């Protein structure tokens, strides 16, 4: 066998294609315009989703690289994932949505049928209610991707549930809707009818094109502001009922066991939360000087009203700038101009939503829910995040 050493072939990062880099790009022609193309990102961009090392890769999650995030929308290729039975490959020509139970007329809708109905497009975040579950006891993950990466924002396109409800009719006692996915977990969650009629969407579009396979292609439920697990992916069935079904995911999982041994059930809304994405854990500031602190704020209960930033571990707070008009159940980017003097600092952000709810400290959360996280209280950790900056400029995840 040949023993000749071979130079390692350079590999393009995921989502990129490798091209030669000319010494002077003004002195030679670039790549031609291709016919029939779907573009890729630059070979110099490397951020990727990070899988949380659960034992089983088919029931696992991956986190969005929020440290590299720009603006508000998450690139579809970097949207966080949580699957309980892997990502199914579904032919949309064979996929239907069945609506039955307490309706006047049970009906089946093909994807073509669904696309003929009036659609709406809305920008919403989805956050897994387990986002940050590693952080109850002590700072655990190094980066904001690890601590907050189960959060992504997209422009979603689809049909309001109310439109379907008008087509099928609803019996007077209809109070809950079970949504079921077509994956190996045949995922099911019960959703209050009030929510379904208020703003639930049956979506087939994400950021201007079809849903990505990891987000439920060809169809998913979108429940603005509800915990991610309820946004049933690969949606195939809606069963209208008078009572919830008490599925495994809404009893064994996604309930919040308090210190007193009782567990909150149907804790569906995601509370107001914010996090500084720059500077954040594992970064290094090159030296004293100006830094534009920036991050994201969001709430499941409406619009973000305001965000404050502290650089002294919460002793003093100053208002941050909001980058855009806050949209309902959507992230908004904030920023705060900071002239770093080179001394140690602790950076924090704290948001208030339009209901007047203020993002709590971890201490406040534990005082209410008990000290049993992450064994009892796993979900809904929306506490203020602290990043310590050392004199050397190293940024680390701390509880402060």
């Amino acid at each position, binding site marked *: 066998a040949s023993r000749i050493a071979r130079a390692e072939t350079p590999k393009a990062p995921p989502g990129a294609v490798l091209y030669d880099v000319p010494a002077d790009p003004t002195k030679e022609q670039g790549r031609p315009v291709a016919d029939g193309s779907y573009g890729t990102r630059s070979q110099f961009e490397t951020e990727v989703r990070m899988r949380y090392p659960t034992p089983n890769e088919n029931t696992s999650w991956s986190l969005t690289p929020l440290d590299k995030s720009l603006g508000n929308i998450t690139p579809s290729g970097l949207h966080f994932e949580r699957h309980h039975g892997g990502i199914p490959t579904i032919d949309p020509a064979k996929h239907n949505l069945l609506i039955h139970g307490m309706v006047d007329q049970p009906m089946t809708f093909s994807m073509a049928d669904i696309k003929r109905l009036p659609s709406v497009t809305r920008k919403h975040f989805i956050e897994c209610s387990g986002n940050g579950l590693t952080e109850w006891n002590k700072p655990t993950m190094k980066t904001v991707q690890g601590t907050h990466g189960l959060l992504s924002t997209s422009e979603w396109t689809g049909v309001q549930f109310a439109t379907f409800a008008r087509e099928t009719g609803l019996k007077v006692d209809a109070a809950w809707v079970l949504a079921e996915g077509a994956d190996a977990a045949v995922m099911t969650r019960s959703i209050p009818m009030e929510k379904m009629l208020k703003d639930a969407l049956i979506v087939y579009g994400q950021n201007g094109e079809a849903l990505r396979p990891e987000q439920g292609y060809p169809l998913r439920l979108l429940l603005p502001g509800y915990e991610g697990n309820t946004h049933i992916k690969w949606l195939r069935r809606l*069963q209208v009922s008078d009572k919830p079904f008490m599925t495994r995911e809404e009893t*064994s999982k996604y309930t919040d066991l308090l210190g007193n041994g009782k567990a909150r059930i149907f804790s569906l809304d995601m509370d107001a939360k914010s996090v500084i994405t720059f500077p954040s854990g594992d970064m290094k500031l090159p030296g004293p000087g100006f830094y534009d602190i920036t991050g994201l704020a969001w709430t499941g209960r409406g619009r973000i009203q305001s965000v404050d930033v502290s650089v002294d571990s919460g002793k003093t707070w100053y208002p941050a700038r909001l980058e855009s008009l806050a949209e309902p159940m959507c992230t908004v980017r904030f920023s705060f101009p900071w002239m770093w003097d080179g001394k140690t600092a602790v950076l924090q952000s704290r948001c208030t939503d339009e209901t007047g709810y203020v993002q709590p400290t971890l201490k406040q959360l534990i005082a209410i829910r008990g000290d049993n996280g992450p064994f009892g209280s796993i979900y809904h950790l929306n506490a203020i995040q602290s990043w310590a900056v050392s004199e050397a400029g190293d940024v680390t995840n701390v509880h402060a």
Partner: protein
Amino acid sequence: QSVIDHFGVGQAATADEVAKYFSIPPSGQGLPPGSGTAKAGAEVFANSCAACHGDKMQGNPAKGIGGDRLLGGRGSLASKTPVKTVESYWPYATTLFDYVKRAMPFSAPGSLTDDEVYAVVAYILSQAKIIKPTETMDAKTLPKVAMPNADGFIPDARPEPQLYR
């Protein structure tokens, strides 16, 4: 039916079509015919479940497996390290039937017969000392099983009033 046909898309679903699906609420509505006992369930469990959940249902955190622990944990829920299992935490036995039938065995979901599901459910509940080893599980008996933590769930108290400005 002018309301239903307003947009004129979609097809009326037949009873046959609807019958292909299931989701079992605490009332047991929709539980299929058939039945099973812990004895039969022990065999199902050994053949189809033990590799991932452990022969004593103690769970298996091995790489590539990651099957949950199913037994134990009673009395631990108010502690700092609560152990949440079918035995200690699950409020309804119907959920166990529904979940095993839809999603287990993890490697071949939906492959068990209804009798096998009834049986393995009976076996788990009997190992958990929730039912007697001799009880038969079927559409009538399963919804009546009293789970230890049936009263353990309370409505969501959020948004917590302390956290308003």
